[in-house]
Structure formats: C-alpha cells, structure tokens
C-alpha cells in the first residue's frame, strides 16, 4: 500500500490531543500493517479529539491521524467528510447547533432562527448552525452548544430563547445541562422508568438500593440457557423499530460458531422526535450497563460497545461514570460478581449521522469506515462487528432485560397485549400540555396517552399525530382509539417505530413539517444507492413545488410521480432510510389531504 501522508504537520496541540487517544507515537513505524489495521476503529475517536481540541479537523491533524493508523488519507478524508459534526475547514471554536426539526418547529424554532439570522452575525469566535433533531424534543426549542478547547465543552440547551442564544454565543456562559421533565415521577407500576428521577444516577449504591444488579445475580444463577429461555418466552421484540424478537437474536449469537462475539448497544437515537433512550441513559445509566453485562454473559461475548450519538454529552458523562463505577466494584472487568467471566464496555460516539443508527452502518462506523449500510443477509448475528457474531440492540430493548431476568417471562407478560407484551416508552412532544417520556403498557389507546400528557395545549383536539418519527406516518383526527400495540398499528398500516408521538393541532401548518421531513432524508441519506441518494432529492423538490402550489404539469401528475418515487425508494433502496423516506409524506397526502388545499 502506497501512502502519501498529507504534508502539513499537525500543530502541537493537535498532536497532543490525538496522542491522548492513540497513545504516544512509536519511535519507529510498527512495520506491521495488520496491527495498524486492527486499530482503525480508533479513527472516529481520534477525529473527535482533533475536532474537540481546535474546532475542526485540519489537514495536518487528518494527515497525522492517517499516518498513525495507516489509513490512506483519501479514505480518512472520506470518513471525516461523512459526518456532520466534523468540520474540515477552519471554524470558530464555539458553535451553537440550533434544532429546526419537527418538535422544535412546532415550538417556534423558525422565528427563533429568523431572529438569530438578523441578530447573530458569525464572528471569529462563534458561529451557529441549523441542526436536525437533537433528541431534546420535550424541551423544544433546543440547541447544542459546543466549544473546542481543553477540555472541550458540550452542553444541551433546552427551552432556547433568542436572549439565551445570544448570551451563549457572546459570552460562552457556562451552561448546565437541563434535566428532563419526568411527568410520571413517583407513579406505581413503572418498569423502565422506575428509578428515573428517584435515584442518584451517579451512585452505584443508590442504584443497588433500588433493586439494581439483582437481575445480573439471577442471570448468573440461572445461566445463559435460563436467560435465553426467559427472554424468548417474554416475547420481547426490539424497540429500535425493526420489531425483531430479542430472544431469537441472542440465541443465534449464543449458538454461532465464530469467536469472539460482541454486544453492541444502539444508542444513536436520531429519529426526529425520539428522546426516550436519552432519558434512560441519563437517569438510569447503571441499568444499561447491567443489561449489557447480562447480554455478554448470555451470548458469550467479552466486549460490549455503546454507540452513542454525539449530541448526548450528559448521557456520555453518566455512562462513562457508571462504567467506571461498575468496573471499580467488580461488576465489569476480568471477573464479574466474582465469577470467572469477563465483560468490558466501551463507549463510541457518533459524529452526526442519522444513518449510523442503521445497524450495519453503525458497525461500519465503529470500525472506522463511512457509515454506509450494507445489504443483508448476512445479518449481524452472523457477520457483525469486526466480522464476528454480534448482538445489536436498542437501549430501551436492553433495559427491558433486567426486569425479565429478575421477575421472569410470565411477570413480564402480565401487562401489554398477547402480541405485544410489556410496556413501551412513548416520546410525546408537540402541542401537548406535558411533553415527555411516558411508559405505558403496549396496547394503550393513543387518546389515553395524549390525555396522560395533559391533552392538547389550550384544550383543543389533536388535528394529526405523527407516529414513529420522520420514518413513520401521520394519522388523522379519527385515530384516538388506535391501540398502540405492534399488531394494532400494523393492522392500521402505521408503525410505532421508535415510540414517537408528535401531536399537532390546527394551529400548526402541516406542509412545512412535510418539507422538513423531506429535507431530513435528503440531508441524511448516506448517498450509496440511487433510489435514495437521488430519490430523496427529487422528493424534496416535489414537496417544495407542491407546497408553493407550483406543480410542473398538474397536481395529479405530480402526486402520481411522488407515489411512484415512494414505491421505488421503498422497494429498491439498500436500507431502511431510503425504504421509509416517503412514508410520512405519503401518509399525509393520503390521510390528511396535504397539498390539495387551494387546488381546484
């Protein structure tokens, strides 16, 4: 392999920041190409180090990282330029990423951004950018503040106002992370949220005093076979959107002949409108650590990774702390609870790419490649992380496991429906009185969930609800009786997806939301396959034309074209991103009559 490194050297601070991740440079090159290749998974952490230190990835920094990891510079550039949060040209050290996505739009983000455009001209010190959903929808309008330096500052900002935004940009005032609203705090019957808000998320003792780590003890008693039996019988299906039975996934990995095996937690949570995993990780980080440990012991994996979206600094902080505490107390490491079994967990941060939530893209991203999904089969249970059998599960899915192991499948099935046992976290946002995460039995009617959230703001009725996020679909006024179970939603031709319930009333214009959704898919397409790469652009153009009432030809023809395009994106795209990119727009046309108003 012929590698020509970028010629500019890194600055001393860049070199130090990168060395802090990669270790000091060896005196002489390792000479072993294989050993460097085995370290390619450090590419994203190294890029984060450079970006976090000086605010962008300079040619010198990229060249140095590529030399250290023996990654061809063109490939390193290809990887860095894939992610929205890596800047490859000099940028001011401070940045405010202002969300202009669905829930924030409903909460007035557009006028906030208009004001910012007038009042906050970029300077050498700071800049602001628009951002897709930051997973803070219950605190809309929201933003993420970042400032490069040692240490770098990263803070989520909820309830953003113009004054607050200007003050942040001007003074870089220290921001404290907002604590989420926990509307069900203290309610009985909570499983996933039982500890949220009631225990100190930084205290392992407090966690254990509230039932933590009983499940791991029980898992060690009943052994992998016992855990798998309970899990299969529980009927738990994945909460990441694809509805795959978790027990069968774990069994497949436990039986796979290849070693080593891995456990990966999908904490990329980037579906617009979704924030449940954030609340779990921030409020009950030990639960996830415990669940992953159970997964590791059950499927015979010794290493676990949490792939966490970069926009969740508080979750990163609390999980890092929880992992360190668990390790210090013998709950992680070369032995677990005194048994001769090993398990370790590492956190890997994404860098601003929705598509990296798709499981194969996520694995590619951890390995140091562009987050491009690949065709399945083979599935990750056979060919997963580093080509090895891998369990990959959503945060909420994993957090169901301790309850199942501790109380058994029958207890788990005591709530929910036969086809959808257990509870589910719903991310309620938009025009409701009390937005937030709600844990309710699967099968709860939509109307009841909205009522639990205080009903529509100001007492009106919902005009429409977006279920499942940008990749989901809209339902209309008549859907309040819809039971939120997997089977009922499937029957109604909709999906629970990641649990998004974005409530709209008549005060919210629908079409700008459709335009935002179309823009989202265009911006987040990885660009690999034609139906999605070009299709999402054509969809946005069509939605824009229709929104302006400027169809080419006639409305009927444009709607037919949009439908054909939707079918082909669904049918011929590689991954779920392209396959669902038209779902919300199509549902709004079908069920809500979008784009027809004002046409004869």
């Amino acid at each position: 392999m012929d590698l020509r490194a970028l010629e500019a050297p890194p600055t001393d601070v860049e070199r130090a920041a990168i060395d802090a991740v990669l270790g000091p440079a060896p005196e002489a090159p390792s000479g072993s190409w294989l050993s460097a290749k085995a370290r390619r998974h450090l590419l994203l952490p190294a890029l984060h180090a450079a970006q976090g230190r000086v605010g962008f990835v300079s040619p010198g920094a990229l060249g140095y990282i590529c030399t250290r990891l023996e990654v061809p510079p063109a490939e390193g550039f290809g990887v860095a330029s894939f992610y929205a949060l890596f800047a490859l040209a000099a940028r001011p050290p401070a940045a405010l990423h202002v969300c202009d996505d669905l829930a924030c739009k409903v909460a007035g983000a557009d006028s906030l951004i208009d004001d910012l455009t007038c009042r906050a001209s970029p300077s050498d010190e700071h800049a602001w950018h628009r951002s897709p959903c930051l997973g803070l929808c219950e605190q809309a309008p929201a933003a993420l503040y970042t400032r490069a330096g040692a240490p770098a500052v990263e803070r989520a900002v909820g309830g953003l106002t113009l004054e607050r935004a200007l003050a942040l940009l001007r003074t870089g005032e220290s921001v404290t992370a907002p604590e989420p609203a926990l509307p069900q705090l203290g309610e009985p019957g909570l499983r996933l949220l039982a500890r949220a808000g009631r225990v100190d998320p930084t205290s392992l003792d407090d966690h254990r005093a509230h039932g933590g780590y009983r499940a791991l003890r029980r898992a060690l008693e009943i052994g992998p076979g016992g855990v798998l039996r309970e899990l299969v019988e529980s009927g738990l299906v994945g909460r990441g959107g694809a509805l795959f039975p978790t027990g069968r996934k774990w069994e497949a990995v436990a039986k796979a002949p290849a070693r080593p095996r891995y456990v990966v937690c999908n904490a990329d949570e980037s579906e617009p409108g979704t924030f449940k995993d954030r609340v779990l990780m921030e409020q009950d980080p030990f639960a996830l650590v415990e669940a992953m440990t159970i997964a590791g012991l059950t499927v015979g994996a010794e290493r676990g990774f949490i792939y966490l979206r970069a926009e969740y600094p508080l979750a990163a902080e609390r999980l890092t702390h929880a992992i360190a505490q668990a390790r210090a107390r013998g709950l992680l490491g070369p032995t677990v609870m005194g048994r001769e079994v090993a398990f370790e967990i590492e956190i890997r941060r994404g860098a601003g790419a929705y598509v990296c939530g798709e499981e194969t893209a996520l694995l590619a991203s951890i390995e140091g490649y562009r987050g491009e999904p690949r065709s399945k089969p083979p599935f990750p249970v056979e060919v997963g992380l580093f080509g090895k059998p891998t369990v990959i599960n959503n945060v909420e899915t994993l957090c169901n496991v301790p309850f199942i192991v501790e109380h058994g499948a029958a207890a788990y099935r005591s709530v929910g429906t036969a086809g959808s046992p257990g509870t589910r976290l719903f991310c309620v946002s938009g025009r409701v009185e009390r937005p937030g995460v709600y844990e309710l039995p699967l099968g709860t009617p939509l109307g009841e969930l909205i009522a639990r959230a205080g009903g529509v703001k100001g007492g009106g009725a919902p005009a429409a609800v977006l279920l499942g996020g940008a990749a989901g679909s809209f339902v209309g006024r008549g859907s309040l009786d819809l039971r939120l179970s997997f089977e009922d939603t499937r029957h109604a031709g909709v999906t629970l997806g990641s649990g998004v319930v974005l409530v709209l009333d008549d005060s919210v214009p629908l079409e700008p939301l459709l335009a935002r959704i179309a823009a989202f898919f265009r911006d987040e397409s990885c660009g690999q396959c034609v139906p999605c790469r070009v299709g999402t652009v054509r969809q946005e153009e069509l939605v824009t034309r229709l929104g302006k009432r400027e169809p080419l030809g006639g409305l009927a023809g444009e709607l037919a074209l949009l439908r054909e395009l939707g079918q082909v994106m669904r049918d011929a795209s590689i991954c779920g991103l392209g396959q669902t990119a038209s779902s919300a727009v199509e549902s709004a046309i079908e069920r809500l009559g979008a784009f027809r108003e004002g046409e004869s």
Partner: protein
Amino acid sequence: MTVHLPLAPTRAVEVSIDGRPVSVPEGATLLDACRKLGIDVPTLCHAPNLTPMNVCRVCVVEVEGARTLVPSCSRKVEAGMVVKTDSERVRLARRLVMELLASSVDLSTAPEARAFVERYGARPERFGPATPAAAAGEREGRRAGQHREPPSGGAETVAQPVKIDNELFVRDYAKCLLCYKCVEACGADAQNTFAIAVAGRGFDARIATEFDVPLPESACVFCGNCIGVCPTGALMFHSEHVLRAAGQWDETEQTKTDTVCSYCGVGCVITLHTQRGQIVKATSPHDSEVTNGHLCIKGRFGWGYVRP
C-alpha cells in the same frame, strides 16, 4: 432471519427464475443464475473483476417472500428461491432508477446506461428541467448534513466543470453515477493505491482525493485502472477528451489492435485504439487472465510519448 451455515462448496442450488428452473453452484449470485438462463439483467455498478457494491440498484429482481426487491448482482442464491426478473414491480424500479440517474447525471458518454434508459422507457424529464450547474469547487465545499434550499423549478444535477489537473486523464464528475468502481479499482480490488475515495454524503457524495488535492499531489500513480472500469466516461483519457471537445472523436473510424506490452516481462495484453493513424487510448480486455483489465502507467499511457 436466516442463518447460513457453511456447506460443502461444490453443492448445486436449484432456483426458479421467471418460471424456469436453473441449477447453479452454491455461492453464485442471482445474476449468475439469470445469465445462465440467458436472461439479460441490466447492471451498472457490477463488474466481474470487482467486489459487488450493489449501489446502482438497476439489477433488482423480485424474490418471492422478500419484503423488498433484491440486487441480483450480489444476492446469493438460496435453494428454492422463486424469482421474477420482469414483473411490473421490477420494471417500475428499473425505470425509476434510470430516470433518477438520467435526470441527475450526464450520460452522454455512457452508451450502456443510455440503452437502459431506452429499454425501460425512462422519462427523466418528468422531474423537470435541470437546474444550473455547480461552479468549480462548489460541490466540494458542501458539508455533510448542511441543508440547502432546493433550487426551484426543476431537477438538481451533479453538473460541474471538468477537472483537468494532469496530462493523462480528466475527471468529469458531471458524468459520475457514483458506482464506486474506480474506488475499488484504485484500492484493494486491483491497484492498492487508495488515491481516491468516496467523500461527503448523500447527493453531495463524490469521488475525491484527500481535501480534494489535485491528482498529481495525491497518491495517484496514474495506472489508469479507474478509467478502465468507469462505465460513464467520467474518467477519460485526456486524448479522448480533447478530440471529443473538438468534435473529432469518431468511434466508427477507430480500429482496435491487441498487442502485448513491451515495457516489462509481465506480458499484459493491451488493446490500442487508433483513429486516423493515431493512438487515442489503450485498454486491456477485462477477461484477460494476465491483467483482468488492469494495467500500469506505462501500458496505459506510455504510447502517448511513442507515436506509432
């Protein structure tokens, strides 16, 4: 989820395609099976000498029981598969894929792709007139995830000025359909130079060197293997580019002569293309056992200095 266990490599697998049974060795692709039956499946990003990337999606077929269509170029046969290659669904997908490509990419030097546009009755103009081309450097300056308002009234394209930064070949990415073939040929599949990679994301994804430096400043060794695999003429010999620009490129006047390269002892087969007594480009047959279609700078471009 199906779990595939490794079986004896010589096993034959029986599948049904368009109602006809066919038996192919395990590990074969649906495309192999189609070809065995003489079914002509369109492909753009597939090449026998490169790892399948299955990105263009023009080769999709319908497999009974599958939720979506599947790319025949990479999907392995499984016993009992029932496949349709010419259903309504398949034809719609292929037509739309060609409409999406033809409305965004300049296919003027891509006869194969143009033939698929014809064959499936694609009407790219349904998406409206092309919006203005990007200025030099504009696409390279776009950042992943950063939204731009769509230009109004038509269809955005990848049109942009051609990159001429060396005397041997030009890169006209207005013609690039992002098949990944050049990246594969430059990388592990042939050349092992890794001078180019896919950079950026989504519609702004593009083939690039690190920080878009000109090729002579990159790791490129000018083997031209990327030109050899490019299906659209986006990568083109400088000589061909100049003749085309002057309106003098005429394939009907050209003759092809196979010869063995005399620079070294490997014995690569080279096809010299001559027009009016002048060599205008050199290729190597893809099925050549020596080259697999790949050459080095001397075989590919050496004639440029030694006129016949």
